């Protein structure tokens, strides 16, 4: 018995937790890790754009419109108003990344709460929430985004609102199904049998087991969100000129494709590279976290 008492107060062997394992597996995936680094660089460049010694992204001159890529002083050429493309692309990342990522973050918060409530409480609450979600699912996402944005009118806030509304239903659906499956597991029943309240059980036993899959799903939506956000600006529904934003730049440069096509295609290339990286990082996370579809 003395041995056992000693054992009770002895320091406990700690084994590796879940997240350090995920980080290790993610680092071992060269494609995903490389894309994560590239994304990080894009984001840092966007945040610290004013300190990178770039030209003024708003200052144009009719005298130097649509210069080619590689023109001295304008490494990526100039746009239809003679503004430096490199500066506009770096600054453009600010709005495009913000407009693409924010709705997913907002929808992740709202959708997770809705899904947790629907999945854990069940019954009539579940029916009300999930049937509402079904109705929004009856719209293709592009159509819904354009419908709401089109009705609200152009603007950054309206674009964020409409994209958030687009992504809440799919995240809610995933959150609900994951929560419902965790809720039916015996450890939740065991926690209930210990007399814990619903809030404590969700905090201690449910949240940690559902956040991972919901998070992975949300990251897979970020690329779609980026493309949609830039698409709204492309249609004239998001950011207004003269702000640098990749979608809007692509639209205003459309007329220039006969004069200087490759400069005109640059903003789209940025959208493509960012969205590709987001998808590859999301895939890497999915396998690092062992989330099944």
């Amino acid at each position, binding site marked *: 018995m003395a041995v056992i008492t000693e054992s009770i107060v002895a320091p406990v062997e700690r084994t590796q937790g879940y997240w350090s394992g995920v980080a290790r597996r993610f680092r071992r995936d060269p494609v995903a890790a490389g894309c994560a680094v590239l994304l990080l660089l894009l984001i840092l460049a966007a945040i610290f754009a004013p300190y990178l010694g770039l030209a003024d992204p708003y200052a144009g001159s009719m005298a130097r419109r649509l210069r080619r890529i590689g023109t001295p002083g304008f490494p990526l050429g100039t746009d239809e108003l003679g503004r430096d493309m490199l500066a506009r692309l770096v600054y453009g990342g600010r709005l495009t990344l913000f407009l693409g990522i924010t709705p997913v973050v907002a929808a992740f918060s709202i959708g997770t709460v809705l899904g947790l409530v629907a999945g854990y409480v069940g019954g009539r609450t579940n029916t009300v929430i999930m049937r509402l979600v079904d109705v929004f699912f009856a719209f293709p996402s592009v159509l819904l985004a354009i419908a709401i944005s089109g009705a609200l009118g152009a603007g950054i806030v309206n674009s964020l609102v409409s994209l958030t509304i687009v992504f809440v239903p799919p995240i809610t659906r995933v959150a609900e199904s994951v929560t419902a499956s965790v809720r039916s597991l015996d450890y939740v*029943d065991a926690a209930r049998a210990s007399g814990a309240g619903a809030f404590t059980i969700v905090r201690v036993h449910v949240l940690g087991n559902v956040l991972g899959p919901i998070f992975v799903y949300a990251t897979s939506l970020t690329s779609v969100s980026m493309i949609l956000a830039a698409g709204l600006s492309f249609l004239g529904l998001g950011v207004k000129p003269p702000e640098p934003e990749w979608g809007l730049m692509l639209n205003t440069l459309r007329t220039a494709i006969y004069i200087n096509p490759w400069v005109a295609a640059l903003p789209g290339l940025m959208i493509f590279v960012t969205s590709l990286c987001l998808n590859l990082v999301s895939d890497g996370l999915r396998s690092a976290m062992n989330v099944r579809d």
Partner: protein
Amino acid sequence: MSATDLAPVAPLPDRGGPQQPLVIARDLRRHFPIRSGFFGRRTGTVHAVDGVSFEVVKGETLGIVGESGCGKSTTARLLVGLIALDEGDIIFDGDRLGDQLSLRELRRGVQMVFQDSYASLNPRLTIEDSIAFGPKVHGMGEGQARRRARELLASVGLEPARFAGRYPHELSGGQRQRVNIARALAMAPRLVILDEAVSALDKSVEAQVLNLLADLKEERDLTYVFISHDLNVVRYISDRVMVMYLGEVVEIGPAEAVYARKAHPYTAALFAAMPSMDPDARTEEPPLAGDPPNPIDPPTGCRFHTRCRFAEAVCAAVKPALASVPGEARGGEARAEAHVAACHMLVAGSGHSAAGGAA
């Protein structure tokens, strides 16, 4: 009854004395609605537990057997309050659940160990945190709860220093089930419900866990309700046995009496279906054929009549009540010691040809 005057999570005192059954379950009913359509209208009802009554005597082990879907797990979950009762009473040591006893208080006294040792432990919590969760919910401090968790790990045979910080996936099935037992004991319960708790384990591990359960019962003055489909294990561990069929009790009595007499044809069929290692011990009775009938629309009268080889007209028409089994030496001495079964053949004058005439 209030828990506030007790130290956090101390064992509940014995209030009713040894003669008071620890649990009296009276006419428990639980029906699950089947919902469908866009708004989830109720389109049917599963009679999972339909009028089940029994008692659990202090200090005994009550075994519950029956085919899957007979309502034994639902009965277990009703006893812990994981599922709300539709009708009936649960009386725990003299206090009725609802007016004299809150659900939270009941859960202090009754704990449960589940079949799936992996699904019953949160994969994101260490073993120690899983065991300490319950006491903390009931107001025990962090350090004290941790200490209790380690003490319990030691008493279920897992060295605390090695196991406390581990995650469930780093343990074997038998070790996990020991953790589940420790978690149940952390609440200092008086009744532990073991729902197929050893069924998924290897035979050798199963024996070790059964021995552990027997030791813990003695040390901690526990009462067990032991649910299993393995009749040999139930016989080994139980003082009394209850046989369920389609949400009803068909036979209940002392283990040896039930195993010797098999008064209800369903009990007999269940035992006949049990494989025996001894060729000479094989029964001539046909094993149970087919699946149980649909619990959404259970048969009239005796629910077993559709599969019973003794079935007669009366069986489909009249539901037999639990009646004492004739010829039992100890029958009728005390209610808890009685051997009863619900079959027309056991009641004289019931109208069944195998029963005697009017008494």
